[in-house]
């Protein structure tokens, strides 16, 4: 009986010791985690994109006979420029009006004005559309962006008012051309 009690006491001690060791190891087990830092960096360069809201624009005239034809286009754009950079939105006619014997871009019949640019400066005064060179619509300065926390709207927009001469020399018929808008940023 004494031996049995002694054995049981010893066993209990061992169990308690074992338990104590386990409890002592728990903090150590929790502390046994590896942490480390990783530096992430993204180099955001200048960027610019646009969309022409109207895929097609009819030029119409009302009122006085031989009054000019007019129409409107809206271009939306998103821009990010470097601190010392800039962005320009330009327009160019892909080709002259087709078929021939009607209005002609080469003859300076098509002009436009710009207005309502929500970011940057819209072109000033009447501009003549060209088939050989791009002409200005909007100029944006450096250090700008588009989106939350940025100046302007998201997306930004500008309105282009088109004017086409109505000359008696044009033959009757329907004539078409295509305007290409492009944007770049530095």
């Amino acid at each position, binding site marked *: 009986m004494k031996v049995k009690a002694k054995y049981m006491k010893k066993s209990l001690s061992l169990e308690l010791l074992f338990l104590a060791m386990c409890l002592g190891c728990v903090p150590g087990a929790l502390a046994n985690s590896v942490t480390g830092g990783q530096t992430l960096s993204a180099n955001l360069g200048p960027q*610019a*994109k*646009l*969309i*022409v809201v*109207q*895929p*097609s*624009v*009819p*030029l*119409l005239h009302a009122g006085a*006979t*031989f009054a000019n*034809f007019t*129409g409107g*286009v809206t*271009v*939306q*754009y*998103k821009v990010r420029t470097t601190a010392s950079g800039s962005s320009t939105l330009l327009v160019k006619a*892909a080709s002259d*009006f087709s078929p021939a014997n*009607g*209005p002609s871009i080469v003859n300076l019949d*098509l002009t436009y004005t710009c207005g309502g640019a929500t970011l940057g400066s819209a072109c000033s005064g009447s501009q003549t559309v060209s088939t050989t060179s791009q002409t200005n619509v909007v100029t944006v300065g450096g250090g700008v962006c588009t989106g939350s926390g940025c100046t302007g709207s998201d*997306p930004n927009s500008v309105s282009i008012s*088109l004017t*086409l001469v*109505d*000359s*008696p*020399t*044009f*033959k*009757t*018929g*329907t*004539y*078409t*051309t*295509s*305007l*290409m*808008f*492009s*944007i*770049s940023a530095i």
Partner: protein
Amino acid sequence: MNHSRSGWRLTMAVILMAGLGAVSAFGQFAASGTTTLSVTVAAEASISITTTTTTLSSTPGLFVDYTGTTAFTYKIRTTQSTGTGAVNVKITSDFAGAGGPSVATPPSAGDALTYSCTVAAPATACTGPVTALTTATTSVASFGADARSAKAGNSGSVSWTLTNDPVYKTGTYTATATFTISAT
């Protein structure tokens, strides 16, 4: 087991489609974009009378007829192949005042206000002399298909002749001639 696998596939499909949709929305913005301009050029015509007041005068002599010229500028575009055009004139207000000349009721048989026409191409002038009327328009010029004037317009004129009837009482008499142009 099959039910859970189908649900997982459906979830992944929804996520994939949402991602593609987001990519396509941003893809509409690009470095450039185009729009097509179209214009329909139709038949049109306009006229401007450049002589504000046409004075009919007579050379001193024995009842020489009164004459005067009205000048105008016209712009016209008629339809290719099938179009036509015309310039006409009508006396919309007769000479006023009793005892003087009259287009509608001349005091003497043979009294008349007549005119001849001169017009630049593409117009064809009237065959004169034409007797002006208060009751209907009379021709000044005509145009055929695909008739197109210069951008600034082309010139024309009407030369008037008014009988100098001795029965007319002395005085100043005024009438109004209205010109119209049309094109198809």
